[in-house]
């Protein structure tokens, strides 16, 4: 029971309270770039969930069984980036094979997950928070879900904004920025949650 409670707590923390995009301000590039259409936002979210979970798994293993025993923790960043980049390449190949339409709509943002700071962020935060293996994986998963949630919400809002009557100078990116700010304010409300 205590274990389940801990997981629930972690999920709420990672998805709402410490949301990667709106509270930690990591991974803002795809948040603005891929949130024009709901379909591609959902696809991007799924890709990020997968990459974050896998990255958490592998980076935790590498940190615990390779870097710490050999006393080369200073290689953390480069080793993690290497891992994440390879994972993204793998995801890109799989998506290109299985869903060409999604591959096209994601465009350049798919390889850009490589340098998405949210992915590296979750890997490093896992280590800093001293999570054990299972919690590290779950944290990666929940962080990815949080990212997807915000991305999909944003895409839904922007799809509607396309049809809204806006002043010409507000159309497109300016109103997206304002919406992003409003969403960040709304998510700030979750920081009052206490268990």
């Amino acid at each position, binding site marked *: 029971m205590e274990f389940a409670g801990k997981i629930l707590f972690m999920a709420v923390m990672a998805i709402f309270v410490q949301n990667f995009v709106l509270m930690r301000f990591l991974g803002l590039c795809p948040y603005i770039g891929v949130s024009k259409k709901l379909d591609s936002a959902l696809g991007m979210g799924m890709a990020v969930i997968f990459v974050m979970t896998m990255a958490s798994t592998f980076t935790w293993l590498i940190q615990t069984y390779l870097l710490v025993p050999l006393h*080369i923790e200073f290689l953390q960043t480069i080793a993690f980036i290497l891992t994440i980049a390879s994972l993204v390449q*793998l995801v890109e190949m799989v998506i290109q094979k299985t869903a060409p339409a999604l591959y096209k709509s994601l465009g350049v943002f798919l390889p850009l997950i490589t340098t998405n700071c949210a992915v590296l962020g979750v890997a490093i935060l896992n280590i800093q928070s001293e999570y054990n293996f299972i919690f590290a994986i779950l944290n990666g998963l929940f962080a990815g879900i949080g990212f997807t949630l915000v991305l999909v919400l944003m895409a839904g809002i922007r799809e509607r904004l396309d049809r809204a009557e806006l002043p010409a100078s507000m159309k497109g990116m300016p109103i997206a920025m304002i919406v992003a700010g409003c969403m960040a304010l709304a998510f700030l409300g979750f920081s009052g949650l206490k268990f």
Partner: protein
Amino acid sequence: MSILIHSILTLGILGLIYGLGLAFASKKFHVEVDPKIEKISGILPNVNCGACGFPGCAAYAEAVATKGAKINLCAPGGDDVTKKIAEIMGLEATSTDRKVAIIHCQSGGKNNTKFKYDYQGIETCKAAILLSGGPNACNYGCVYQYDCVRACKFDAMHIDDNGMIIVDNEKCTGCGACAIACPRNLIEIVSIKKRVHILCSSHDKGAIARKVCGNSTACIACGLCVKKCPVEAISMQNDLAVIDYDKCIVCGMCADVCPTSAIFDPLKEVRAQKKATAKAKAEAMKKKIEEQKSQEKKEEE
């Protein structure tokens, strides 16, 4: 020392494992791409001007290879590219109808145009026309802030000594970027074969149009060209003569009758020369015949 060796080994082995894994994955998830697409995109000029109607050269290449799009749509590439694509696709090359930009205003350049006031704002036509209908006296003409020249990616538009914008037909690819840039819609993309143009866009009444035009070459809507045109290609729309290029046979008769020379015919001199030589020939023939006749008469006598 051991830290150094450990770091090199660790990263090296990690890299090796990932590399091998990716190599394996790339074989397993290999996607067959039509080799024609790559070949065609290699030939296309890759300026992504969009003149073909597809979003960029890559999309056009794919459309040609897989969806049977026409092969002669690439304006910047012209006939060369069409021929090469035809070779790849095994089709017959039909010549491209090359298009170039025509500026429907010849008010004489910045130095000759009549201005209402001295515009000193931001150097863009879009801003200039906002200030009380533009700085120039003619409400329809070029304001000479050269948005079109800046929009041209192919260095095909030049400004001459008078401040006039000259389109270099050799370099112009007909991509239409200048036509989009012009806030007064003075630029039209027309087939290079259609050489006769009405170089005025003024909808003003005749007297006003002539008065405000720097060159006094405005269309005064007299309608002579409409009457003269043998194929009814010219029509009067809102006090402005407009050529229907589909009907125009480039005979140049409208340019001959236009009282303000608002209609431009680059072949005028050539035509005049041809006419002169034909006349001379005919006269020579006449003389010959007359001589022959007179000789025959003499012989009879």
